[in-house]
């Protein structure tokens, strides 16, 4: 089981997951329509790209966009959650040992204490996301069961990973559960709303181009996101 999950299954998962995300990005661009979107993408590409980069940067740098400044508490938790989500699995020592075995290469790894901390941040961040969905009427009204399901899919690899890491209960069981939930998460990326992993960039880029071309950029006036 372990060999299958970390062998062929893992490679299939990576293929589907990352391949799928790339396909979604390509489909997004193909589905743009200058006339319906009312953005002259092609003739003003340089203005567009400038707006796109500004738009993306404003929202991936904490406290850069005005939105982030208006809600410091949320912003900190939101970025901590996402950074933990991305950084932990990529730079985790155990994952890199596997990489080393398979390819003979590995990335720099996080000290165990930091990795543990980041994993906990993700869990607490996830919990906070659930709580605010329940607590705030403006979030409750738009929340669906699907939103909770995605949160669960996202934090399960961390829960199982931590349990295995602290060797609570049957290590092999929890390790298998960790790998399985991790793969489920990866497989969900292209097929669910988690596709925002790539589509966030596409959407931000598109709106950035819109502002960079038609809505001010060509007037030499940058949007103060």
């Amino acid at each position, binding site marked *: 089981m372990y060999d299958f999950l970390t062998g062929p299954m893992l490679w299939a998962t990576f293929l589907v997951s990352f391949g799928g995300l790339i396909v979604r990005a390509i489909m997004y*661009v193909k589905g743009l329509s200058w006339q319906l979107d009312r953005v*002259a993408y092609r003739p003003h590409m340089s203005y567009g790209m400038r707006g796109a980069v500004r738009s993306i940067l404003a929202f991936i740098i904490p406290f850069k966009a005005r939105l982030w400044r208006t809600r410091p508490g949320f912003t900190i938790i939101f970025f901590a959650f996402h950074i933990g989500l991305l950084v932990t699995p990529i730079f985790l020592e155990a994952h890199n040992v596997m990489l080393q075995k398979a390819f003979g290469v590995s990335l720099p790894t996080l000290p165990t204490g930091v990795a543990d901390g980041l994993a906990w941040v993700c869990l607490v961040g996830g919990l906070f996301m659930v709580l605010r969905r329940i607590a705030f009427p*403006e979030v409750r*009204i738009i929340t669906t069961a699907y939103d909770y399901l995605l949160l669960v899919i996202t934090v399960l690899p961390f829960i199982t990973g931590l349990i295995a890491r602290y060797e609570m209960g049957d290590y092999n069981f929890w390790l298998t559960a960790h790998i399985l939930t991790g793969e489920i998460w990866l497989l969900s990326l292209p097929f669910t709303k988690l596709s925002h992993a790539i589509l966030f960039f596409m*959407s931000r880029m598109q*709106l950035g181009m819109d502002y960079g071309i038609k809505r001010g950029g060509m007037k030499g006036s940058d949007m103060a996101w």
Partner: protein
Amino acid sequence: MPEGKFCNKTPITTEEQLKATLGDKGGKQYYEEMNHLDVDSEKLWGAIQKTMKSRTKTWLEICAHCGLCAESCFLYQVNGRVPEQVPSYKIQSTLGQMVKKKGKVDNEFMQMCMETAWSKCTCCNRCGMYCPHGIDMGVMFSYLRGLLYSQGFVPWELKIGAGMHRVYRAQMDVTMEDWVETCEWMAEETEEEWPGLEIPVDKEDADIMYTCNAREPKHYPEDIAEAAILFHVAGENWTVPSEGWEQTSLSMFAGDWECCKDNVVNVYSAIERLRPKRAIGTECGHAHRATVIEGPYWAGREDGQPPAPYIHYVEWLAEALRTGKLKIDPAKRIKEPVTLQDSCNYVRNQGLKDVTREIISYIVEPGYFVEMAPNKEHNYCCGGGGGFNGIGLYREQRNVALRKKKQQILDTGCKLVIAPCHNCWDAIRDLEEEYEIGIRWSFLKPLVIGMLDVPEHLLPKDE
């Protein structure tokens, strides 16, 4: 599928239809008929499949339901922060459901959508600036309005508005003859005080072709006279077209895209016919959005640009003041606290924030200009945008919407508001009528005329 006499899926295209619909006072019969109007689900779904591309599809799909957009919407703020006013909720419960159900929706649903699209969103595009995913409800609500219009679910005034544009190519029943006559009449009247002043109609190869908002010839023709005075003093070589002079587009707010195209093409043909170096539009935000920002796309112009450079009035005015074509007498500058309304349609939607402030620097004594908070591209809609001002059915909701601007103005402590947009001007007038906070409001033209330093040779000769 029962379609009413007034409320139906067919746009108004003749004067008789228009007059008949207008005769149905307040749309009484119209709204009654709407209760029996059928939804053509097949056509609706067909339209969605054909026109809903990456952008809208992705927006509907990836909205994180995080609610961060809530506070960005002034309608959420002024309506007691009820969750039903959260931008994401407003679109998910309307367009989102329509898509999910593949167009199989009923009359009641469509009426709910109509109410949401026209009374809970002014297409001000503010929320798009605050959503981490860049989801712009203003864009999506415009899209939804198009779908609703094609099914006959549109407020009575906007059905008529679009009809006006179809029949007269103007938002009011101003014909080409009315327009040319108004120009001649205004030129005659103004010439007494401004010797040599002209309003040249259809002059070819001029430097400037001026276009306006049909409310001007219809209700405040002095605005045309004021434009003429300023062009005259600035020594501009200008003209107005006899046909293609009207740049507003109620059809844009109604969601009648076919009509939008027809109107803007009419304005562009005037440019092509008269070959001005550039076109200048009046002080109107939505007119600018229609002819300059969105228009090129309706007309199918791939570069997204009108056939000649086409600028908003504030751009011309700033330039005329900057280059000294117009000179301000420093003694006559505004010497009282004054604030500025940033119109969504050319500030947030075309970045003209600094140019308007440049004008302020010439006409207001330093120290007297007070910014609204927030301002520039973060400013709130005046409260009456997107057609809201004109819809009787939603008058109450509109009045509530005005409270945001009321508070913003009160917070500045100013009694004078500069509003270089027709619609904002109207909304601020209405808010004074409704709430009596003791303010005055003005377009730029009359203010500037009042403080001009006019060269000797342009003044009337004393006999």
